[in-house]
């Protein structure tokens, strides 16, 4: 797409100069946006591209975060390792969860994953020996290496940005090729896809695994960035906010993950000024309104707008 050729480098440049422009606190918020964006991209691979509804991605986020936290806290593993390991463990967990999920279509999958989302905090509290129970695990933020003149938040911001770019490039390559086409084919017409020789069971579990891996990477990053994990931050509303983000950003789009992440990070902040309950009321309202008027989210809306503008010009 012509728009992408200018937009992507511009966005990367903007992201790189951002640490010079804003305070550490703002920067931390943007780190959070990038982390959400990775998770949303993961959910989008599953729900947007493959059509499997997951209301329980908070569970994989939790697995990633706790994997990272336990590695750093118990075994003093350097934080850099926790990110790929968190992803790998979630890949396996997601793939395994994807196998029974094969038999569950549509609503039933939504139900099962919703139940998973509700049960996560309890499970985390139960394994108190590992997870620290409801107290959670307190970590410390890593300083910038090689004596770079950066604050902890600035360094984490850059690390997260790097991971984000890698994950987005990987996702783009995965989805633009053979595998991506197979995933979309299964979503749009499973029978026809199978008739064309697509191994439905394999691809669907694979989608689950990859999706969980993305979310796990995001979870591990969040443990590093926030330097704290506790069971109640992985409740069902986290899963719902992931879904909200991917719907509002735009299902089945890659750039939608960024828009969605900006939305779920900043809108609650603004809404909090009105009332403690307002963020969720606004989330709900946006969810419903987007379903009615903009089912392809912000990314879809922008694409439509761009197409319309360029057509008029030519």
């Amino acid at each position, binding site marked *: 797409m012509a728009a992408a050729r200018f937009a992507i480098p511009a966005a990367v440049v903007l992201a790189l100069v951002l640490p010079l422009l804003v305070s550490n606190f703002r920067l931390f918020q943007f780190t959070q946006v990038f982390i959400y964006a990775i998770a949303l991209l993961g959910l989008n691979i599953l729900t947007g591209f493959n059509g499997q*509804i997951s209301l329980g991605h908070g569970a994989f986020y939790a697995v990633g975060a706790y994997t990272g936290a336990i590695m750093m806290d118990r075994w003093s593993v350097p934080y850099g390792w926790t990110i790929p390991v968190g992803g790998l463990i979630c890949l396996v967990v997601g793939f395994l969860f994807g196998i029974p999920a094969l038999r569950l279509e549509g609503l039933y999958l939504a139900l099962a994953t919703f139940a998973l989302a509700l049960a996560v905090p309890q499970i985390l509290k139960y394994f108190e020996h590992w997870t620290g129970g409801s107290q959670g695990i307190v970590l410390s933020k890593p300083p910038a290496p090689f004596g770079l003149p950066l604050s902890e938040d600035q360094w984490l911001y850059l690390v997260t940005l790097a991971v984000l770019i890698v994950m987005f490039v990987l996702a783009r390559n995965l989805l633009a090729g053979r595998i991506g086409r197979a995933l979309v084919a299964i979503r749009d017409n499973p029978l026809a896809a199978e008739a064309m020789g697509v191994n439905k069971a394999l691809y669907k579990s694979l989608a689950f695994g990859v999706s969980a891996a993305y979310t796990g990477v995001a979870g591990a990053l969040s443990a590093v960035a926030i330097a704290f994990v506790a069971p109640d931050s992985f409740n069902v509303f986290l899963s719902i906010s992931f879904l909200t983000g991917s719907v509002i950003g735009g299902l089945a789009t890659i750039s939608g993950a960024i828009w969605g992440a900006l939305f779920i990070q900043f809108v609650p902040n603004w809404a909090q000024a009105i009332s403690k309950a307002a963020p969720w009321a606004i989330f*709900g309202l946006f969810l419903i309104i987007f379903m009615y008027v903009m089912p392809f989210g912000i990314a879809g809306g922008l694409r439509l707008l761009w197409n319309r503008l360029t057509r008029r010009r030519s």
Partner: protein
Amino acid sequence: MEIFFQQVVSGLATGGIYASLALALVMIYQATDVVNFAQGEMAMFSTYLAWQMLQFGWPYWMTFLVTVSVAFVLGLVIERVVIRPVENAPILSIVIVTLGLLVILNSVAGWIWTYIQKPFPSPFPAKPIHLGAVYVGSHDIGEISVMLVMLLLLFLFFRFTPLGLAMRAAAQNPVSSRLAGISVSRMLMLGWGLAAAFGAVAGLMVAPIVTLEPNMMGGIQLYAFAAATLGGFTSPGGAVLGGFLVGVVENLVGTYVKFIGTELKLTVALAIIIIVLLVRPSGLFGRAVVRRV
């Protein structure tokens, strides 16, 4: 042995709550193929309305009637305004819309009435009743009776009234019903209204036990999902039985399986849902849906 019976009886009591919420879910599922994720929150919201009326000093049973009627109307309105526009949309859109409804109701309740737990009165006397060696709380007995009466009324309504027949017809075969002069969309609205009213009763009955707060229905709705899955989303009777079964299982497992206790309650529901979906996706009494491709 006494402990066993004690647990079975209190399991039946909580099971009654699950059963009625499960029935509400199934009613909507049968009519519209939608699993209403906001069912529990609709019940919670109605219960808050009841609490408000009681604060005004209204007598309990008047509050009860008014709440159930208001919930009925609320259900009608929600179907008409929120659900109708996405009626024929893909499942994902409908799931998302009902989830949107869930968070809106939850946060609006928190907004108006705060997140502080509120005690909610029971209409039944506080004295427990002796049944042989087993003590049963009168609220438990009263609650089971209310639920059974509601179920009976519902059964009679669907089985013996022309309107009930029309609703069943609309759910089973919308096209033929429309040709026979039934307004299918009106029947769907009515279905949502009835489900909401039913949910409201469940909310009123459960609030004295769990105390009123915006998140009180979260776990209960999960159990209702488990009940509906176990009984079968296509079978109202099955869902009711599933509700009682799940209630009893929950209590027995909590008592006798030491490593689960009460800390993993929600995980038990998760396990029930996943096992049933894997072993017998249509549930114990549901029929498998055959689709032509």
